[in-house]
């Protein structure tokens, strides 16, 4: 049996129900490939994504987390993604401040019509995270060797 040593990162994608989840469906409908490492969790709106979810994902072994929502101004709930945008900006900045690699987190606005963008974003994100390798830093942050 062939052993594949290539690192396959675990990626969690939070997608809002109204735009990005539909965008992900569309990339499926159009048979646009992206790596199987990406697993999507459906949330009603990007503003439902609690920083705790992201940290929890990293804690449980995720190597990258991406949040997708409607484009600013197009939120199904009018304002949800604006709040998400501020929250994620601050959280990402904090992770960077702690020395965690910037590439492991990302926010992308994907509309229901942007199946191609969804697939392209995922391909790109997986590539970035693959280059970064396994997520060790958050785990080891407290263990001074």
């Amino acid at each position: 049996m062939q052993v594949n040593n290539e690192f396959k990162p675990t990626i969690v994608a939070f997608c809002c129900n109204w735009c990005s989840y539909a965008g992900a469906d569309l990339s499926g409908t159009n048979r646009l490939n992206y790596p199987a490492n990406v697993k999507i969790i459906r949330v009603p709106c990007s503003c439902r994504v609690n920083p705790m979810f992201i940290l929890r994902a990293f804690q449980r072994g995720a190597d990258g987390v991406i949040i997708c929502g409607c484009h600013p101004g197009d939120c199904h709930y009018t304002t949800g993604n604006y709040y998400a945008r501020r929250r994620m900006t601050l959280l990402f900045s904090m992770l960077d401040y702690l020395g965690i690699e910037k590439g492991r987190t990302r926010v992308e606005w994907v509309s229901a019509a942007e199946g191609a963008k969804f697939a392209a974003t995922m391909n790109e994100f997986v590539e970035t995270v693959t280059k970064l390798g396994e997520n060790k830093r958050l785990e080891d942050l407290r263990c001074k060797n």
Partner: protein
Amino acid sequence: MQRIGVFVCWCGTNIAATVDVKAVAEALGKEPGVVFATDYQYMCSQAGQDMIRDAIQEHNLGGVVICSCSPRMHETTFRKTAEKAGLNPYMVEIANIREQCSWIHKDMPTATEKAIILGRAAIAKVHLNAPLTAGESPVTKRALVIGGGIAGIQTALDIADAGFPVDIVEKKPTIGGKMTQIDKTFPTLDCAACILTPKMVEAAQNENIRIFSYSEVDSVKGFVGNFHATIRRKARYVKEDVCTGCGLCTEKCPQKKVPNEFNLGLDNRRAIYIPFAQAVPKVATIDPNYCTMLKSGKCGVCAKVCTAGAIDYKQKDELIEEDYGAIVVATGFNPIKLDHYDEYAYSQSPDVVTSLEFERLMNAAGPTAGTLLRPSDGEHPHTLVFVQCVGSRETRDCGKPYCSKICCMYTAKHAMLCREKYPDTEVYVFYIDVRTPGKNFDEFYRRAVEEYGVHYIKGMVGKVVPENGKLKVQASDLLSNEQIHIDADMVILAAAIEPDESARSIATMLTASMDTNDFFTEAHPKLRPVESPTAGIFLSGVCQGPKDIPETVAQAGAAASKVIGLLAKDHLMCNPCVAEANELMCNGCSSCEKVCPYGAITYSDKEFPGPNRTRVLRRVASVNPAVCQGCGACTVACPSGAMDLKGFSTSQIMAEVDAICK
């Protein structure tokens, strides 16, 4: 732990060609709590649904996971299936193994592995699902329309036609709005009064419609289906039910020098007045700012001449309380003030007028009885210059950044009417762009140019100088790259339009959102254009954005149909996936309320058991499930985690995260 059944769909070959469905069913069958797992060619078919129903009953399933296409496709189908089998529909979760798995991966082992993980996540979530029941709230079968212009009237008529009572609240003494001041309507040039006044009368006579003219909405409380409004009927010092509208008082009143707002101050009215002949209701109103009797207690002429005895100088504002199921905002617009555009000499010469003033000057019921005369000297004007985009598409503070949309068409109309009635006139229109998207609109504009010989000049007017009875117009002609000078008799400014100044306070009252220009925002700009994001609030007419009469009427009808759809229900089924505050953990800090786009969260002081059998009073949040739309913004704003979202709870999402990252 739930007893869970897993159903893996082949979707013909759509899934089965890339995902080893049997392996998936087998693997998921071993997950904790799963007591039944199977696969089938088409789960959504009748046979597939029967299979699910039977399994639920046979295995006494408490939760169902269906590995199939996107939940956006068949979630409702499978929820109904579960309900038929006696299971709460919200105990069903879908693992999307088609759009998000089989269709995007080519390699079977990879796709199968991913399908199993997605199935696991769904199982983990369903373990934490709780049966949800959609709440119900009653609906008051009465609508409130704020604003009695053409938008408000049309909405009210349509709602009333469907058999529901409607109240129109209009702040002016008569309904009719801006359209009453318009002479002719584009692109057909029929007379505005001829098509509007029958509708006004119809509204007055419709037994389902009550008109509160000269009234304002003081406050609104409640939520969709259950609004409670206080309406202030301002004192008009005339008993509305007694006044016959004979108009004698308006002829005898000695106070003659009151600027007539109906004619935009181009002539005068009395202190007691009926705005115009076809006013609805046709009753007199005393203007307290000018009435000598009200100001100094001396006069009383109107009371003496009124044979009906309708005058009541002691009348007070009256407050009316009423319940409504739906509210329609139809507050309309005004042209902007031109204080900062005096390069056009608006305040220096009476012959420089706004387009709305020009309407009055062309109108048979206007100050000149329909003959176009220069306001300064009553002479017939020969050269007219129209300036478009005065204040529209401006990023300066005094202007508006948006296109006012109606000006190109009414200017073409004015120019055309002018040339038609007075062929001896020269008419110039200065434009930046001519925007005429609409049925028969561009043809209309072209007619002005081709048939009526209106001079359309691409460029702007820079300065108007009144001199020796003429208006010296200095402008640019961009196509010939020249500065041109025209000695005009009249200059007509197409002033930008802006939402009525009452809109902002009404929006606050209704917790309806507005954009930076004070236009109401729609629930969705394309798909829900007549609804406000706040449930039960609907938008009609220019309050939502600039529009012409046909569009306004269309939107009014659309808003009415939405209202009818709402009022036709006895109860509102609420989306059960709404936020819920755990009172024991709530700090009452108001963080959630600040981010709620719907105003669904309120606070109250409640007693809770404290230590040593004491009682502690605490401020806690509660969510109105009828208003909450379930976005979840509050759940993240809440520092204590007291706020959670049913159907997408923190623990459910965390369980999914865990299952995926394992």
